[in-house]
């Protein structure tokens, strides 16, 4: 009997040992596989967004191709990050690829990050934070914040120091940058455009660099409110021209607020920005004179501002209603009174969005455009040029058509 027990124990130990060895082999194999999948310190991530939609005007309607914006992120180490964004668009039957930004950020310390390359300028918040289609709560951009009619810079090439830190009960963030800056349209090619600024410059037209920055203050300790002050100044004229000393001073004030409204089971998101661009006095060829010999001048000061609110009943029980968001925006743009390209436009856009997830949305909106009567403008004629068109790049007026009211259905996805 005793012998039997010894034999049984030996058999069990043998089998157990075998099983243990098998488990050990499996463990080694799993560890090897996991090690193969280890992400490493240097990371690559591709993100981005895309959008398209249907736009209906009084006399026409069109499905618009929208855009596809791939974003490439390379995290080389805990301090070094590259971000690059391309914009692939359909324009007049052609595929156009643009470089939105491409820059390197290096984290110098807790409160300082150095950025070099082409980056979105923190001049206010629209260009830097709100313009991506899955972030912008409306299908169109506000007046003065479109590619066609821009009051204030959005991207440029240069060097920037930025960061954020706690301050008292709240926080502050800052940015200081040196960039190429906009260039002045001297009106040599098209006299009607004399005095306008071009913002998307890959090369500078003078030795002078534009200096700018933004200070953001979050006074409340729940980060729900931010007020920002931005400024940029630099020469805009060509070194070898009579406009060499013409400079542009630009100012912006922005406001953000995101707040849970418990009584309405909703989240309220309010954003606003005011931009002003002043170009120093200069004379340009008068477009009224076909011989091109008469000059005229005007006060080259333009303003654009918007305020938008979005209310999302995110905390209600209804599965459909909680994904709906009601939106409204008012925007106004006044361009250089007295200039051939002067205009005074107001726009109101309202509608609702349906969110499929946190970055996929279908937007429905109606947009009312209003341009002040021609007599409102100075002696420059006060014509409304194509440049001063509707909110979206594709919107009425954006390509020289009269701006009108429109209905939009857009979808956007961030990924």
């Amino acid at each position, binding site marked *: 009997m005793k012998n039997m027990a010894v034999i049984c124990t030996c058999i069990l130990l043998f089998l157990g040992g075998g099983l243990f060895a098998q488990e050990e082999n499996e463990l080694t194999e799993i560890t090897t596989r996991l090690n193969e999948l280890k*992400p490493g310190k240097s*990371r690559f991530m591709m993100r981005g967004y895309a959008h398209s939609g249907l736009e209906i005007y009084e006399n026409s309607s069109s499905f618009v191709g929208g855009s596809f914006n791939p974003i490439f992120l390379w995290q080389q180490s805990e301090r070094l*990050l590259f971000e690059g964004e391309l914009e692939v668009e359909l324009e007049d039957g052609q595929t156009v690829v643009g470089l939105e930004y491409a820059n390197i950020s290096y984290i110098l310390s*807790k409160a300082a990050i150095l950025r070099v390359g082409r980056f979105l300028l923190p001049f206010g918040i629209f260009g830097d934070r709100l313009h991506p289609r899955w972030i912008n709560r409306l299908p169109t951009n506000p007046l003065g914040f479109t590619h066609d009619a821009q009051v204030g810079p959005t991207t440029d090439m240069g060097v920037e120091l930025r960061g954020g830190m706690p301050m008292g009960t709240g926080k502050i963030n800052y940015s200081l940058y040196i960039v190429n800056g906009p260039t002045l349209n001297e009106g040599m090619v098209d006299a009607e455009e004399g005095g306008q600024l071009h913002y998307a410059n890959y090369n500078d037209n003078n030795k002078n660099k534009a200096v700018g920055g933004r200070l953001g203050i979050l006074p409340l300790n729940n980060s729900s409110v931010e007020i920002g002050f931005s400024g940029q100044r630099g020469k805009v004229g060509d070194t070898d021209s009579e406009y060499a000393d013409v400079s542009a001073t630009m100012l912006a004030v922005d406001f953000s607020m995101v707040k849970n409204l418990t009584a309405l089971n909703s989240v309220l998101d309010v954003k606003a920005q005011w931009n002003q661009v002043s170009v120093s006095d200069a004379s340009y060829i008068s477009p009224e004179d076909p011989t091109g010999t008469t000059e005229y001048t005007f006060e080259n000061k333009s303003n654009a501002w918007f305020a938008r609110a979005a209310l999302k009943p995110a905390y209600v029980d209804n599965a459909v209603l909680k994904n709906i968001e009601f939106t409204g925006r008012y925007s106004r743009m006044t361009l250089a009174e007295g200039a051939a390209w002067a205009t005074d436009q107001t726009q109101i856009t309202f509608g609702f969005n349906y969110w499929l997830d*946190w970055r996929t949305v279908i937007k429905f909106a109606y947009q009312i455009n209003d341009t002040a009567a021609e007599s409102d403008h100075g002696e420059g004629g006060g014509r409304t040029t194509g440049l001063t068109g509707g909110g979206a790049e594709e919107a009425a007026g954006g390509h020289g058509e009269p701006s009108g009211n429109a209905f939009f259905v857009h979808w956007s996805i961030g990924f």
Partner: protein
Amino acid sequence: MKALKISGSILGLIFGISLLTAAGCATKGVQPEKLGAQLWGENCVRCHNAPNPQAFSDAQWETATMHMRVRASLTADETEKIVAFLKMAN
């Protein structure tokens, strides 16, 4: 034009009231030690909807939050706590 002006005033009013309510609801005093989940809830909704922690893997969150630290000028401490929370909750 008149309708636009009226709508503009309404938006202005919403704007003013919302600022007042926000100021009223913020807790007073020195910034308390906050947890990652709370910082995520407060900060990641300021520009876009708060991302779902399950959207990305741990490694992807590290890159995405570093991107946001740069772009949104988050403080170093906030970023550290938020990324720890996202990695735990995904």
